[in-house]
């Protein structure tokens, strides 16, 4: 009877287990299923390499009025002085490393525990699974039930932390409406880069699944909370684009940093609009 069968315990088997249809191939997909995980892995790797270099560089992150988003807020005594900028010397002279490391931990944690990125790196780096219906190479699998992956559940705290970081980056963007002599009411190409970046950062942050849950998803009766219901719907619309926003904001934040780097190293001068 189809209801009565016990699962057989053949841990090594998976799709090639004794009870399954006898097919030797680990998968029979004929499309280019490997393309998507390969691109994901390549993209993430490129970002990791770039951001590691930039985070440890501890140089070329400020070109008035722009501060690299990797170094904002700048919380150590060894920060480059930025007029009006978010550099508060919470960490004294004993901190000899790059100040980026102090703050990057938050956006890094936010993205590392993000439901989209989890999918991306589980598939791209861990091959767990590499693609749908393609057998994974691991003998054992316990998912997010145990340490350390059970820590993924703290995603919402990183969300709470990501909001003030995004607020500070917004402040940086406001500061970008100055010219290099700190006079207000000016705009350059960098301002535009910052505007796009902060827009994408906010969209990515607010489209987060934890955010969707907190603003309304946890409710049982939407009709009793019309305002939160509206917010939930709005976040839901953004959330449907979470993957696109994750990539777009990743690229934009790197681009904003690169832009500052190029200005700071004198590769070119910021084209000013007014």
């Amino acid at each position, binding site marked *: *009877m*189809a*209801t009565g069968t016990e699962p057989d315990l053949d841990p090594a088997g998976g799709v090639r287990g004794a009870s399954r249809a006898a097919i030797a191939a680990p998968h029979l997909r004929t499309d280019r299923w490997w393309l998507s995980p390969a691109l994901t892995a390549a993209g993430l790797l490129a970002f990791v390499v770039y951001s590691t270099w930039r985070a440890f560089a501890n140089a070329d992150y400020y070109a008035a009025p722009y501060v690299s988003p990797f170094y904002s807020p700048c919380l150590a005594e060894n920060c480059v002085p930025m007029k009006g900028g978010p550099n508060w010397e919470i960490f004294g002279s004993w901190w000899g490393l790059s100040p980026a490391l102090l703050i990057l931990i938050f956006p890094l944690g936010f993205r590392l525990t993000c439901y989209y990125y989890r999918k991306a790196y589980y598939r791209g780096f861990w091959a767990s699974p590499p693609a749908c219906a393609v057998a994974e190479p691991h003998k054992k699998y316990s998912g997010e039930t145990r340490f350390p992956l059970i820590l993924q559940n703290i995603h919402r705290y990183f969300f709470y932390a990501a909001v003030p970081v995004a607020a500070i980056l917004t402040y940086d963007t406001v500061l970008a409406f100055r010219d290099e002599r700190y006079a207000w009411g000016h705009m350059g190409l960098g301002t535009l880069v910052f505007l796009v970046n902060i827009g994408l950062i906010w969209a990515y942050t607010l489209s987060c699944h934890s955010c969707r849950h907190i603003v309304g998803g946890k409710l049982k009766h939407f*009709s009793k909370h019309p305002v939160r219901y509206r917010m939930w719907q709005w976040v839901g619309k953004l959330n449907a684009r979470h993957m696109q926003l994750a990539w777009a904001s990743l690229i934009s934040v790197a681009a904003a940093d690169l832009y500052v780097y190029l200005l700071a190293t004198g590769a070119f001068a910021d084209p000013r609009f007014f």
Partner: protein
Amino acid sequence: MTQVERQRWDVVVVGAGGAGLRAATEAREQGARTAVICKSLFGKAHTVMAEGGIAAAMGNANEHDGWEVHFRDTMRGGKFLNQWRMAELHAQEAPDRVWELETWGALFDRTADGRISQRNFGGHEYPRLAHVGDRTGLELIRTLQQKIVALQQEDFRESGDYEAGLKVFQECTVTRIVKDAAGRVAGVFCYERESGRFFVIEASAVVIATGGIGKSFKVTSNSWEYTGDGHALALLAGAPLLNMEFVQFHPTGMVWPPSVKGILVTESVRGDGGVLRNSEGKRFMFDYIPDVFKEKYAESEAEGDRWYDDPENNRRPPELLPRDEVARAINAEVKAGRGSPHGGVFLDVSTRMPAEVIRRRLPSMYHQFKELADVDITAEAMEVGPTCHYVMGGIAVDSDSAAARGVPGLYAAGEVAGGMHGSNRLGGNSLSDLLVFGRRAGLHAAQYAAGLGERPVLDEVQVDAAAAEALRPFSAEGPTPGEAEEGRPPENPYTLHQELQQAMNDLVGIIRREPEMEQALKKLADLRVRARRAGVEGHRQFNPGWHLALDLRNMLLVSECIARAALERTESRGGHTREDWPEMDRQWRHANLLCRLADPTGGLAATDPVRGQIRLEREETEPIRPDLLALFEKEELVKYLSEEELGS
């Protein structure tokens, strides 16, 4: 004596669609140990195909609605041939059955004030159909399935066994009802599709809830399961079938591509504003309003269109006439050369509603056309034509208890039972029928089983005969030696099935003529003889060829019932249209046609092509109770009832 596994249960329910599951929950709640047997996996029953909704006069959308109005609509739809007590019970109890589903977790679409939303449908005076988008049947089956699981969880908490009081035998087929020496139900003979193993369930009461017969026709909205199993089981057990000539052809089935021909396009498309047009772009339904409905339907397109927003002051568009009328009209248009390229007519919502609304209200239709026909219904019209959808006829039952006539312990509910819908069923009345009479069948079966002093004892001869019958396809080696056709190979069951479907479709289809039906009976006799030689390859484990060979017996029996009854009834009424007798005849209103097995003792006298297997009997219907007649205007009644009936 055949050695087969035996199990003992109090009540056996054959079929796990809406009626079967509702019967099973009721029987279990009455304390009967209940077994459900179904051909497919649990939860896959044909009920999932029902789209539009459940008709129940809850009055959520229009407070004037009530059971009396629903009763009237049902009787009108059935052209007054309905077993009126069933129509009455159905109208009265349907709301309770729907509300009960909510307490089991069903989630219907809602009105603004939080109650169950109700939609318009053909033949219903007020918006009456509780629905979930256009997947109401799925909601119904899932809710009942989950209720069964809830009851099993209850049993588990008490006894440690999920299946102590209620068990589903999925992917099993019943081939015979086995009786005791006194002619009472004693159990069922089954085989497990997966392994081919035979087993017998001993039970004092059997509820048949196997659905319909559509797989005897070529163009049908029905799934492979609809082979008339329950009809045949009852016939073979000695119970009569009622008014089998009434087969509903749903007006709107898909007509293209060929592989999906017949798949249903829900009536909600019209209920929500869709219109029918011919190749000249004309809304032809205005030309097809029959006299009995003249006062109820709009005369102009403008009036029909106003009705959607203001039903109080306008009459409904004729696209919402009962299904038989619309199906005939489409048939006539196609015949007159005004059909669509693939032999249907156009059903259009794209010019009537914004794309976004269509996608929200008709999601599965949108999906179905997009996926299967590459048609975007928000941008272009669908092509539709009639498809065999439902059989109004069925096992003759007692209205209150759903007990089959003449066989103690046998009950029937749902499509397989006859009488409720008369000559034509209204859309939405099917799901409510399942719930109302499913519950009644389960209730009375459980009470009957509990009331018997001791269990009926199986007649072992019948068990042996059933086993031999089920094994015959494996030993089919052509004809018996010495006969004329010696040396011919066994028949292919698939070929026989295709020929049967073609014959029924062409000769006993939507429009019927005497010579064609006589031809059909000849063809059926021929097929019956050949079906004796239907052979199969391979072994008993999940062998679809074998399963089909066994189902052929049922389809042939049921098809003969339909053809014989259709030939006998010399009038046109509801789902039975005679080209040679185009008028409705008031004298036929009080006549029921009963089909019985011609030779109940000798199993199937299947090899005798002349005699056939079915004997017809005519009986007077029970007069309609005066207080129910009083619900109608006299002017309306004279159209249906004869002088004598009116006089009394």
